[in-house]
């Protein structure tokens, strides 16, 4: 079986400063991996490398057996909702339909299949009744769900999420987790950049501990040890209730 994502000694440098060094790992279809590390650890850079948007200084990224740029059609990216302009005049339905743009092309009108895929995706995140609302009128968590719906509408084999649980309410969090679980069941691989360890436990089989270099890559339970977390964050880690680990941000 072709892995959804394979990282082989991946390094990225901005000018002479190295942002990432020697990242290795494999994600199989239907699996989810959490990228865990402090701010500035290189999580977003790794996501960019997987999307083929930054040149590598070493190593190789393989997405669905192809070079990243050649696999974009099958990869969907979900940005943080609060990085988008809430005043932008666009409806929820239009945002989700954007996930179909690459399939629709430049001139053709969206067909029945596109509308259906968009409608189903919005249903999957529990916001089918909001299609006609303006995107910016929704809550932060709902906006994040709309962006996930946009990604689902693209029918991706690899889904990349950048801090999807930041500032998200409990209802939206559950809806996001459910939708991610459904995607995995359908065979999509998922990469989630996050510093929420509890959610890494809930959503991901594997974690990749990251701070410029790799401090561990493997099954969530076995990899998220207090020692490794302390090494990754370079600060204090607390152990609570056996396996829940919370890191105090310095």
């Amino acid at each position, binding site marked *: 079986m072709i892995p959804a994502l394979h990282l082989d000694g991946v390094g990225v440098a901005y000018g002479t400063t190295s942002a990432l060094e020697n990242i290795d790992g494999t994600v199989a279809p239907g699996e989810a991996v959490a990228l865990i590390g402090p701010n500035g650890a290189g999580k977003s850079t790794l996501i960019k490398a997987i*999307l083929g*948007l930054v040149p590598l200084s070493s190593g190789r990224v393989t997405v669905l057996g192809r070079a990243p*740029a050649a696999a*974009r*059609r099958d*990869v*969907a*990216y*979900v*940005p943080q909702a609060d*990085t*988008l*302009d809430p005043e*932008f*005049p*666009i*409806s929820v339905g239009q*945002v989700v339909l*954007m996930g179909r*743009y*690459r399939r*629709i092309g*430049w*001139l053709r009108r969206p067909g029945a299949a596109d509308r259906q895929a968009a409608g189903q995706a919005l249903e999957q995140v529990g916001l089918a009744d909001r299609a006609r609302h*303006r995107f910016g009128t929704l809550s932060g968590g709902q906006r994040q769900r709309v*962006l996930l719906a*946009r990604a689902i509408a*693209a029918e991706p084999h690899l889904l*990349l999420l950048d801090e999807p649980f930041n500032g998200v309410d409990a209802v939206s969090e559950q809806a996001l987790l459910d939708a991610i679980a459904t995607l995995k069941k359908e065979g999509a691989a998922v990469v989630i950049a996050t510093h929420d360890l509890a959610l890494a436990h809930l959503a991901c089989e594997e974690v990749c501990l990251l701070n410029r270099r790799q401090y561990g890559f493997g099954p969530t339970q076995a990899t998220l040890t207090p020692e490794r977390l302390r090494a990754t964050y370079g600060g204090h880690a607390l152990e609570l209730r056996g396996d829940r680990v919370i890191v105090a941000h310095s």
Partner: protein
Amino acid sequence: MYFIEPFTFPFMARALAELAVLGALAGTVGVLILLRRLTFMTDALTHTVFPGVVIGYLLTGEGGIFWGALIAGALTAVLLTLLTRDRAVTEDTALAVLLTTFFAIGVVLVSHESGYTTDLTAFLFGRILTVTGQQLTQTLVVTVLVVAALAVLRRPLMARMFDPRGAQAAGYRIGLLDLVTNAIVAVVVVASVRAVGTVLVIALLIVPAAAARTVSDRLTVIVPVAAVLGALAGWAGLTISYDASVHHGLRLASGGTVVLVLIGLYLGALAATTAGRRLRAARRTA
């Protein structure tokens, strides 16, 4: 009769057509400028085309203005891309430097020539009443090309405006899209400069789109409303200035009148939406 009479003169009819077409074009492109937050870049462009306008005029007369401005506009777009590429200079700084440098070159060139003040006024505020049939054709061609480009690129542009990182991830070439956007803005600025002058172009581009934005949250409404408001202001402004000069002995500059009508429309739209919102809120509480 009031709104028709002036246009029985061929020169007024041409001016009306030019302003109406420009208004519609500027209104449409204005929506793009507003959503991409390119207002300052557009304002800079209106100033950087100034030396092009002057040089074009000095070399070949009225006909050279369009091409001179076009070259200066293209030069601005290229320089801006180069200056900001390595992030050594922030975009607003680069814009401010380019804007003042180009504008100063224009002023120096104009002051060098005799008939300084009349020419300067014409360059700064436009000469709508001397628009020729050929110029009108140029404007029409530009309008058709720009609208066609926007129609073809609407989805990539939309994706890029709403979510640049997502668009990049989806494989859209952001750099190329931005270059096309800058080029479209530059071409529209150039096409408008001759008619309304470098100073007032920015109003023609920004105000109709801003007014339309207050009216609706839907782009399918905003774009046509902005185009209609732009055309309407062109027509009404010219008519009012004509009427004031001919029937009331009051000389009103046509370009300035057009802009004031635009501002009036904007304030009207703002008042209407505010009143509408209050009314709906009152109904809900009642």
